[in-house]
């Protein structure tokens, strides 16, 4: 087995551990940090079910962003939906045999990549063209977009220009999953693509990508508007109460 294959196997194990462990740790942190006061942005649902609907609309339709700015919404929405399709399409490299819906989605996932890169380009353009957004953009904001676009373009290159050997690729991926290691096809686009994906996985838990799990914990969105009917008290606040009476 080539040292390149060994490097990539090591890289992906490391990236997977960092991604899963890191995100799990962040979720644990957010979950255990109490929200001492009831602070939903109102008008807010008065029941748990209502809050679930609010959160569902927020994460599937980007409701608040839609209210806010139509350009950011269009670019952001196109990017996220396309990314979702692309990610689902990639499941084919992990499972065997393929189920019917997964086969069906393949062409949609392939062409979604164009929209994904388009959405990202739009978001990036805003960082240059809108003076307010330019002012708040940090170098990492630009690099994050560059990284995602590079991942998209390197993937599209393999999909639409010079096809990589996906049977071998699948063997490599399945090999890592089953500890029955197989060689990685030596294809430049693939190496670049996989390296950047691993990089993205590694920086996920220490970057703004935490908005993905984070939105579900946002107290202004996930709290029920019922403070007159239900007493809400955080453990540290209850301790304070016992001390002060």
């Amino acid at each position: 087995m080539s040292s390149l294959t060994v490097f990539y196997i090591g890289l992906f194990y490391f990236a997977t551990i960092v991604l899963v462990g890191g995100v799990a740790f962040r979720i644990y942190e957010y979950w255990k940090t109490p929200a001492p006061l009831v602070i939903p942005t109102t008008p807010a649902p008065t029941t748990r079910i209502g809050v679930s609907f609010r959160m569902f609309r927020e994460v599937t339709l980007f409701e608040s962003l839609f209210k806010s700015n139509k350009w950011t919404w269009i670019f952001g929405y196109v990017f996220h939906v396309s990314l979702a399709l692309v990610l689902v399409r990639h499941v084919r490299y992990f499972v065997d045999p393929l189920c019917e819906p997964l086969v069906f989605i393949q062409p949609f996932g392939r062409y979604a990549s164009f929209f994904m890169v388009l959405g990202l380009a739009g978001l990036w353009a805003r960082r240059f063209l809108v003076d307010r957004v330019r002012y708040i953009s940090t170098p990492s904001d630009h690099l994050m977009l560059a990284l995602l676009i590079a991942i998209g373009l390197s993937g599209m290159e393999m999909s639409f220009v010079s096809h990589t050997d996906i049977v071998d690729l699948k063997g490599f991926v399945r090999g890592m999953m089953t500890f029955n290691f197989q060689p990685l096809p030596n294809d430049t686009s693939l190496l670049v693509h996989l390296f950047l994906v691993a990089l993205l996985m590694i920086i996920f838990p220490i970057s703004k990508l935490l908005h993905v799990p984070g939105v579900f914990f946002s107290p202004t969105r996930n709290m029920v508007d019922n403070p007159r009917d239900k007493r809400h008290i955080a453990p540290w606040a209850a301790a304070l109460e016992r001390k002060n009476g």
Partner: protein
Amino acid sequence: MAGPEFEVPKLADSSYTDVPKINPGSMAHIKAFVAGQGPQEFLGYPWTMADDWKERVLDRMGEVLKKYRSVRLFMDICVHCGACTDKCHYFLGTADPNNMPVARQELMRKVYRRYFTLPGKVVPWLVGAEDLTKDTMDQWFNYFHQCSECRRCSVYCPYGIDTAEITMAGREILNYAGYGQKYSNEILGKVQKIGNNLGLPGPALIDTLEGLEEDIEADTGVAVKMPLDVKGAEILLVTPSADFFSEPHVESLIGYAKVFHAAGASWTLSSHASEAGNFGLFNGNYETMRTVAMRIRDAALELGVKRIIVGECGHAWRVAYAYWNTLTGLGWGGNDPFSIELQSQLDPRYKQPTHICEYTWDLIEKGVLKFDKSLNDHRVITYHDSCNVARASRMGDEPGGQFTIPRNIIKAVANNFHDMAAETIGESTFCCGGGGGVLTDDLIEVRVKGALPRMNAYNAVSKEHGVNFLALICAICKAQFNKVVPFYGFDMSMVGGVHQLVGTAIKLED
């Protein structure tokens, strides 16, 4: 009035306030007065930045990050998408980019990244992390006092990031480092020592109320009472102390008294709890907020009332509606002895606490109150949704009742009503520009410029429909508008309370 030392923004031709090009540093010269030794020590804070200020800042920040999920989360999840950048009235009125909500948050986030995150420690230049310096503290003090904690940004953020939470945390950390704001902290002293924000002692309060009773009787021929400290009364009214002697606030107090009179209610005010306002909210200190709120609980227990009603005050209603149950057990659903002690005294038929608008609207719906609407015919009215009522509370049973109920009251007592442009009311309402601890003369430039979006919306309905009255249910909004509308060429008599309108039209019997 001497002319202002700054340029008052020009009113637009429509209700829409143009988004300005950013003008970095345009409000960098602003500095609220710094709190002195007295108020700082009373609140348990140092009053100067000692040598260990940096440790104190980072200590407190670490503490806040552990205690508040909002701050912990909001530090991490902002993606700098820019959705909030044109939503803050202070940015729209000043063009200072640090008044964009995300940039205001970044003032804290860059310190958070530097000292609490791995990338910020390793590659600060890449992720926008910065060392904590005295300059940072000056920027915090400046720009965290150019935020009225109105939550408009939180409506538009795809993750619900609420800059108010960051501002509150920032002020708490500043206080802890010995860099407090004079206005808010002096008020927090007065309310705890004397019982209200204005420092109005008991005897003065008795005098004021007696004078008002005489005025009402002279005016209407009906002996409407304003009872104080009556044990065994059914209702305790807790209202902002401005209602006792500021104009136009007092007109609303007269309105509440007339409503209680017409309903034949047994009610009382309390000298111990002669203030609904709670500036602990603005400072972001849970314990201070709780101590101030406990006065209401204590007064309710001492007077043995069955029901607690809150007068026209925006942030007070937020604290009452959303926090009193948590802070003081005043509400329903608590099953601990502390909560049960108060619950067993309160009347289970009612929402506790109740907003005065909920109370009045309920009586109107039941047909208890009678009005001569024509008495308000000289007024063409619009209604300003106050930020804390709109985005941090509710009235009635349905979400959005905080928008419909006050409007329903106005329409029941007056004939001429026109709403301002949709994107400037309801959940999208623009702050008056003076909320959240900004209502002080040392910040007048911030207040005047921050009022611009509201003034544009008002100007548009004033031109189109001849609107001449801006109805409110917030003591801070009333005081703020009274002061700033003349800068825009309006007459301050255009500002008044919803219960001022009720009081004008209500029919009283002996």
